């Protein structure tokens, strides 16, 4: 049974006709070609599939597309402003916070959402916020450094 769902993706109004139970992850990837959103486990344990839904990080593998109806979805493809990277993206580059890089989109979105709600996170806050995101290359020290750097940049800016 297909239904039409309308939502905003990376600032653009989109509509898809699909089954209500289909995971948002698969709709974003397969129908909208937003493959920056990654499948990692399908059970919300790795958060490679993180997207922002009305600004909150959600695991898109467990979120049915129907739950996104009428909401704003941001994927990694929509985080930069044109050529200007989001401070968290820039910090990941500056700290070399990636090995294979598969977990990076989910981590950047999770960290961006953290910095939206807490502009001065301590290391403990960052670790708490990112603990749900797995990196199997185990590049955690640099990821922590990158989020710290992004937070500090924000502090200087104001």
């Amino acid at each position: 049974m297909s239904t039409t769902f309308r939502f905003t993706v990376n600032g653009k109004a989109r509509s898809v006709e699909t089954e209500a139970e289909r995971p948002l992850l698969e709709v974003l990837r397969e129908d909208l070609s937003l493959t920056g959103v990654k499948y990692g486990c399908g059970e919300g344990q790795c958060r490679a599939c993180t997207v922002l839904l009305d600004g909150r990080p959600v695991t898109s593998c467990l979120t049915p597309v129907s739950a996104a109806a009428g909401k704003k979805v941001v994927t990694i493809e929509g985080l930069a402003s044109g050529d200007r990277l989001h401070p968290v993206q820039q910090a990941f580059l500056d700290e070399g916070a990636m090995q294979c890089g598969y977990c990076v989109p989910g981590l950047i979105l999770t960290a961006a959402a953290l910095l939206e709600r807490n502009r001065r996170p301590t290391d403990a806050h960052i670790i708490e916020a990112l603990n749900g995101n797995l990196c199997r290359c185990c590049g955690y020290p640099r990821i922590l450094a990158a989020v710290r750097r992004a937070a500090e940049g924000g502090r200087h800016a104001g």
Partner: protein
Amino acid sequence: MPDEKECFEPERYELREPPAHQFALSRREFVEAAGAGLLISVVAMPARAQTRGALESRLHLAEDGTVTIFTGKVEVGQGSRTELAMAAAEELRLPVERIRMVMADTDLTPNDGASSGSRTTPATVPPVRSAAAAARELLLEAAARHWQVDRARLEVRDGAALDPAGNRRFSYADLARSPELATAYKAALPAGAAVTPVKDWRVLGTPRYRLDGRDIVTGAHRFPSDLQRPRMLYGTVLRPPSYGATLTVADLAAAQKMPGVTVVREGAFVGCAAPTSREARKAVEAIAATAQWETPEHPPSNRLFTYLKERAVREGGDSRAPRVQTKGSLADGLAQSQRRLHAVYQVPYIQHAPMEPRAAVAEWTNGKLTVWTGTQNPLQVRSQLVQAFHLTPEKVRVSVPDTGGGFGGKHTGECAIEAARLAKEASRPVSLRWTRAEEFMWAYFRPAGLFELEAGLDAAGLLTAWDFANYNAGTAGLETPYRVPHSRTQFLYCEAPLRSGSYRGIAATANHFARECFMDELAGAAAQDPLDFRLANLENPRLRDVLLAAAQRFGWQERRKERRPGQGVGLACGTEKGSYVAACVEVQGSRVREITMAYECGAILNPANLRAQVEGAIIQGLGGALTEAIEFEKGKLLNGSFAKYPVPRFRDVPTLDIVLVNRPDLPAVGAGETPIVAVAPAIANAVFAATGERARAMPVRLKA
């Protein structure tokens, strides 16, 4: 080319496997395959890699000045793309950003062997440097001829030869347009193109982050699971409910009635392709609901070590025969000892669980198969596809986009074969991405191992005898680096219950765990400090250096004297694949608080990447050391998911202190694997110091 040893290490079981499926030929295909030897010489497009000269197969200069380096190596996060680009940039005197890398495409790139065994640095960096140095020499020669000046008076800077006055440039773009290049491309690599000595390095030896990092942080990079082709379908495969189960009955009708669904059943293979992955899943679920299986007996993991020992191949068995190395007389060594110790150690199966599960996109065009897939061994995957579909190698192209992790776990082509079978049936490209559950259950595991050790010490605490038997774990790191006059070292192949293969460090992790924990037991028996005991029995200067470097940085002597409740320190060291590692660890109750590691792998090529590899190896090693163990019963996994199989997370990361020992006087060797081998034994030894309880099995489960 991979060396012989790499190919025949017995624990690389996955490299000797036949393809996951062998499909039948239609009559038309049979005629084509039988006549293929004749046909290909007439019509098949020869692959770039096989038809070019030595220089051209490695390097291409375009008339717009673009420099392209070709390598069969794969980027799975270990840093090969950046390292090889740096190697070329160094010799070409170009900024590294100007190098374009074409990697791991069987139609385009030379045979550099698999991306495994830490071989990129020692075996692929040198030919890339030689080719780039040869191109630099050609540039000088051509410029000298062009300007009619003495070549010795020219230098190459920023991608161009400069005349002595510095007002004329002859660039790689100019070289690309010159007749010299066309001739040189076809010739063997010119001799005498010396690579740059370490003291003159400008690019190598400096820290560089991943060159394509921007595509990673913007989500623009397409991993194998992200590729989308026109008219592409998504695939799903019907998996047996348990190991060894064979399908007896399956009704395909319901799936076949679903709109847009392609259904394949051939031999043991059943799969569906559909316009969305959800539709493909539903089709396979409909078949699964009707399926009946015959399931054989399968041993449970709680009987694993008895099972392995019972099934050790003790005689005959060709490549599976026991490997026994002896030195002196074990009996004499034991007879001479004042103290003897005996212990048994165990190491379970673990899974690599890379973030990106196996993925492949397969496409057939006019009888030629192209598969984009995440593998560390594209040539092996091509051979498997050749066998599975009765093709000639020219008819199969395997291309590997930079992939989401491997850790030794992606050497095989099962996903590529499955995607190709579905694509063939559908006559459309098919993307098949394994689920996490499939990756846990059907990818191969790091082998489990059982270890029986016995050693003798003289009155001074020196080793007189060493008897080490390894069941099933494999041979990497099997031999002790300590001085022992009398020894017997054995590896026994076992008929094992699970499919096994390479894992970061291969068997060196298991062998070091058993050996380095047992060395601690022996130090205790000799009433010596574990550091002093090792040094007294150790001659290898490089291993001594890292051991001392780690101990000094950690403050071993002082911290060993601290006696807080629940606190303990431990150390371990080892060598494998030509590099040297030592770790000191502090545990406090249920937590690993701190790890100090010293690591030496010759001349450091990219210190930023080296540090990342060491950090990653340590933290990944924490999983195997503390929590990871595959459990199974009746042929099913009991913990085949991230919810049930805990791997290291942010909260588990201890304080890390890493000492990179640079040896610019020594050749660089690979560093992706060996740092992991010291982690588990150092932790187990620290746990003993803290609790007085000796952990003789991985994982060492810390108690609060």
